[in-house]
């Protein structure tokens, strides 16, 4: 496809992208009953004609038809480049928006996972502590009952000496038992500690990822704002056109409006 064909196609795409969809009902709501329709081909042809005419005018002074043709071709190429760069930018923006949405989902997922892991950890700790307390209380009770039964069988129950003896035996047993429990608990703690460490590592990793993702999200949100909005057709402040039919009248009117606003806004 030649440059001219490409230009037409690109122009058509650009014009189509700049259009927006509306319904007849929506137009009616705005008070519009009939619309003026300009075909896409016609718009493209007009733009092409305008470009061509401008080119002809601008390069009229250049020597040689070949030179002019070369300039025209280059201009078309530049125009195509501009259109392409706009497309590239739009694509990049779409990608950024998509990325932003994905990151938002990811942040939500990570937050949920973090919350669930934290809950899991604390509930596991509480559960283990409660279970241990209950188990020890049960074992203590059983031991007390067994010693009482033994004393009863030996006929030592009921007098003060034997009760003193029972108390000593119980204390002695308790000390040994506690030592043994501590040993078992230590072993279990070690086992549990490695589990906790694993969970903590996971937590810290999740936290890190969350922070990183949130940073990325902020960056993307900022980036998304880059080409928000629609550019004005004016680069500079305009003002009244000297060639305006009502130039003098309008100049006075503008001055009156300005003076009144100056007073109203307390600038005078």
């Amino acid at each position: 496809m030649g440059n001219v064909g490409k230009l037409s196609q690109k122009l058509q795409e650009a014009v189509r992208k700049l259009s927006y969809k509306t319904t007849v009902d929506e137009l009616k709501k705005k008070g519009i009953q009939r619309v003026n329709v300009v075909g896409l081909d016609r718009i493209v042809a007009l733009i092409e004609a305008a470009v061509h005419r401008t080119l002809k005018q601008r390069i009229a002074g250049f020597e040689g038809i070949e030179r002019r043709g070369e300039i025209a071709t280059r201009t078309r190429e530049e125009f195509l480049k501009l259109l392409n760069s706009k497309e590239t930018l739009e694509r990049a923006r779409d990608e950024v928006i998509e990325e932003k949405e994905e990151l938002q989902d990811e942040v939500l997922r990570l937050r949920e996972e973090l919350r669930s892991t934290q809950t899991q950890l604390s509930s596991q700790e509480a559960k283990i502590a409660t279970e241990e307390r209950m188990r020890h209380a049960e074992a203590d009770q059983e031991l007390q009952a067994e010693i009482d039964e033994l004393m009863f069988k030996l006929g030592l129950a009921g007098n003060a000496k034997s009760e003193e003896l029972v108390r000593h035996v119980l204390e002695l047993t308790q000390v040994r038992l506690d030592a043994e429990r501590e040993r078992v608990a230590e072993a279990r703690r070690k086992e549990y500690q490695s589990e906790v460490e694993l969970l903590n590592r996971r937590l810290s990793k999740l936290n890190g990822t969350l922070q990183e993702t949130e940073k990325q999200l902020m960056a993307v949100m900022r980036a998304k704002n880059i080409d928000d909005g629609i550019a004005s057709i004016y680069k500079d402040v305009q003002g009244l056109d000297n060639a305006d039919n009502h130039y003098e009248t309008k100049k006075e009117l503008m001055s009156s409006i300005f003076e009144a606003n100056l007073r109203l806004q307390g600038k005078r």
Partner: protein
Amino acid sequence: MSKNLENESSARSDAPATEEPKSQSENTKAPESSADVKAPANAKVNAMSQTDSMQTSSGDKDSDSDKEAGVLYVGVDLGTSRTSISASNGVRETVASVVGYPKDVVSRKLLKKEVLVGQEALERRLSLNMYRPLEHGVLKTAEDGSQDQNAKAAADLLKAAIGLARARKDELVYAVIGAPAQASIHSKNAILKAARECVDSVMLCSEPFAVAYGLDMLEDVLVIDIGAGTTDLCRMHGTMPEESDQITLTYAGDFLDKELYKALETSCTGASFTIGMIKEIKEKYAYVSGGSDPILVELPVEGKPVQFDITKEVLESCRKIIPPIVDSLGQLIASFDPEFQHRLRNRVLLAGGGSMIRGLDRAIEDHMKVKLGGGRVLRIEEPMYGGANGALKIAHDMPAEYWEQLR
């Protein structure tokens, strides 16, 4: 101008669809080759969007020194019922002049917003404290004279409306706002204060003046701007209109709603309806001359939809707006220089949402013939955007040094 700013008239839209608005402002003319077509209802139409640009990015530039990429002019028509904007990037939008704030923490969490404006607010009105900050074309005030929540609502409305212009961050934004009719200095200051938060420089102007300016009709013209709260008549004679050049009537869109409501209360026995439903009916069917197909509407009677023919009621209610308008036209014409009265009578512009009542231009002409011995009424092409387009044109024509001094 001071008189205009301090004691002038305005109002805004309402009313039904009729004629054929076309071009935007003078700044964004489309190629001329065109054809009139009618598209099937609800068909999607691809309309040319706003002027776009191949500029790339602006980043987070906010400071004035960074705003070198362009100048966006915005014309705003702040109306009782609707607020319209027209901008030099081709954007034209209208938003209902209502603002809603979540009623409680639950609705705030649900809506995930602190402020809702326009249609969005109307759709969620049950969860919101609703405000219509303008009444009869002016900012509502509390009984103690303060503007209270209405001032905040007006500010939020204005911010939302200017936000619709989708200004780029790297552009200077200069706005002209059609000031509500007889707004007090206090009201105008509230509007200016709100606007300054979202634009670089702002001016107020008379709404009917903006309409005439937008059409380049600055001499010997009478503008009738029919809004929801007020109908403003303004006589233009090449200078800024003074107080004596303007008349404000309350025979406007809201008045017609009430009249039609009363008429249907009598004729549609057993039917239940709200003023909002009546407004919708009016906007769809209102007419005053030229005949109409039977206007059949369904209204609920004891919960069951029943069809009613309201053709006569619509016609009679809508016609009530004509005599006071023509009487006021008569006053403005009679007090004008006799040499130019004939010219003035034949250059009457009909603008505002209310001007979309079918056959209104013809009906006013007929009434003028009887009362004033004749006259010509011209309905502007874009009634909904007449004020905003005019304000945009004023913004465009305002010299740079004036904008600078008001920054």
